[in-house]
């Protein structure tokens, strides 16, 4: 039953939906990273790898 249903479906809409999904994710992330408070957070985050360890100070 489910098999027949699946076989009868036209799957070509899937790629189109996928595209829109991706666009949504992409735009979402872009808006996300440009939020106001992000600048400060990202500055402190990107400094993390550069911090000297206790022994080296």
């Amino acid at each position, binding site marked *: 039953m489910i098999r027949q249903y699946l076989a009868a479906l036209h799957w070509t809409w*899937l790629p189109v939906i996928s595209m829109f999904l991706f666009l949504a994710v992409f735009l979402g992330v872009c808006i996300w990273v440009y939020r106001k408070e992000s600048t400060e957070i990202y500055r402190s985050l990107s400094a993390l790898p550069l911090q000297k360890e206790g022994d080296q100070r």
Partner: protein
Amino acid sequence: MSKSDSQMEHMETFHYDDEIVKRFTLVTLLWGLVAFLVGLYVALEMAFHQLNFGISFITFGRLRPLHTNAAIFAFAGNAIFAGIYYSAQRVLKTRMFSDKLSKFHFWGWQAIIVAAALTLPLGLTQGKEYAELEWPIDLMIAVVWVAFGINLIGTVIQRRVKHIYVAVWFYIATFVTVAILHVVNSVSIPVSLFKSYSAYAGVSDALVQWWYGHNAVAFFLTTPFLGLMYYFIPKAVNRPVYSYRLSVVHFWTLVFIYIWAGPHHLLNSAVPDWAQTVGMAFSVMLWIPSWGGMINGLLTIRGAWDKLRTDPVVKFLALALTFYGMSTFEGPLLSIKSVNELGHYTDWIIAHVHSGALGWNGFLSFGMIYFLVPVLWRTELYSKRLANLHFWTGTIGILLYVISMYTAGITQGMMWREVNAEGALAYPDFVQTVIRIVPLYAIRALGGAVYLGGFVVMIYNILKTIQLAPKAEKQETRDEFPRFVQKSFFSELSEAKSFSHRMLEGMPMILTVLAVVAISIGSVISLAPMVATNAMVQPNYDKELNRPYTPLQLAGRDIYVREGCYTCHSQMIRKTVGDVLRYGQESRIEDSMYDHPFQWGSRRIGPDLAREGKRYNHLWHYRHMKDPREVVAGSVMPTYPWLYKDKVDFGSLQKRISAMKTLGVPYSDEEVVNAETNARSEAEAILKDLSADGVTHAKVEHEIIALIAYLQKLGQRGGQ
């Protein structure tokens, strides 16, 4: 730290677990040596077939999986773990969650590698690329991987910093995705301790396998290395990453897109067209985040170009990024159907893979190790000059490798499809296209040898560095950092201002869940045709042509899988003019619907075998497998003398047929019970035929008889 961090309290002193990093670093060198040596040997076997020596353990089909597994899981794997254990502790400002789990992870992983190194040459394999290991080892992998995951996420949870650095996101995505890929792809039904059949068949197996296979590249050879890049490049040039924003966009787009791209390994095949289109579209799109990441890395180095001349670490990292850019440009290109038609099954793909593996993964690991060893052992690198020598030999090695393989791939691809004025194949004998490229195999081996030479120089340099390092009593790195007190979810809610950011950058669980959602969407959709295509089997298919294997044919198929014939032969005639002219009617879904596992292959060092059945008589195969050059001058196929001595275990056939029945292959109960008798009488018939042609020493039990039965079944009427 921002001022809102009112939790900032007193400083805490703690130590990083450097011991585990040292261990993973050292075994990376050891397994790298093994992986490269085996790679060089199989490369030489291509150029000089005599090196197969007629010895089963070292024959190409068995060693090639050992090479790929060693390179991916032993060399790259241990390098990743070394880098993750080092960098995660430092950006999270805490020791690893559990020393015991770290140790378990280390020894468990080494045990898996040893088990792989023992079983693969013995021919114990599931016959699925990069997932060859048999089910008990698969279970070990699952357990050890979960231990790693608990340790990683545990460390994230007990961190001292508030926000999680982007490298760690890449590590978390690596953990969850590889776990899912491994479990789903490995589902199989065991027939004995070291033999199992994949739960999926034919086109379904192909879709699952390449969803796995492609994402092994994505989430084992890309995301963890990108995480390492985001830590070690800033570290090496002492500058923050060029754009942190870009790194976040890079992460989410890459994780979201990568998972869809699997079907680009199955272009022009029997997989439904729409699925191929999705695979192609997303593969092309992958180019954008990949280059975004590469540019971000290169621009981070930009402010320190002087170091590019003086610091070997920076040199290796910069070149690694360049190779990353090259292979992520080439990947999308190869996913375009028409380009793929030319490049697929040829050495072009081998070139592509090695610019990624040797250039990106290799050089990034080398750069990282040159950075780590002096820091961990508190000393200076023994010799910068040797490191520079390594850099140049490595680069020349890769160039020799990829240039020879591009030439070989494009030459062979063109020859396969070239037609003359009459519309017939210009090179009808497959072996003509092999003989042309064998000299290039020698150059490739030379390239590999040069690269390996550079690596040996590195091992010497590193060992010397360690030997000359001061012998300190306690070498763990001490650090200080205030503890950040994690608030409950609800008190967080009340401070709404920074909440949204806290959610993503701060909460590992939400981040993990979102990453799982991102990869699940692509997974579900790219695996959907698996359910659908089974339903797409035409009800009026040729019942005679597409009947299940007889017990003897199945025994032969198991030998085919064991010997890794799929490393040289495909069983998928594509919907392309060149393929159809050469091999017969295109493969359809029904042709492999009982194939647990599928054996479509990915490389044609020899011709496609999908419709090999009845193309030649039994005697031809009998002589060909014994010594291919006796029948086909110039062949590079190995000899298989042991098939003429070793015996098929007829007693186990009933169990094997029964397992297939469990998996849904339509055998009757009688066929299960009579498996052994049926197999013997079929073998006797083949033997009679061979005797009539003058073969005297063959016996019913000999494995070659079963293999011939299988080869003659393939595609049945294709040769007629």
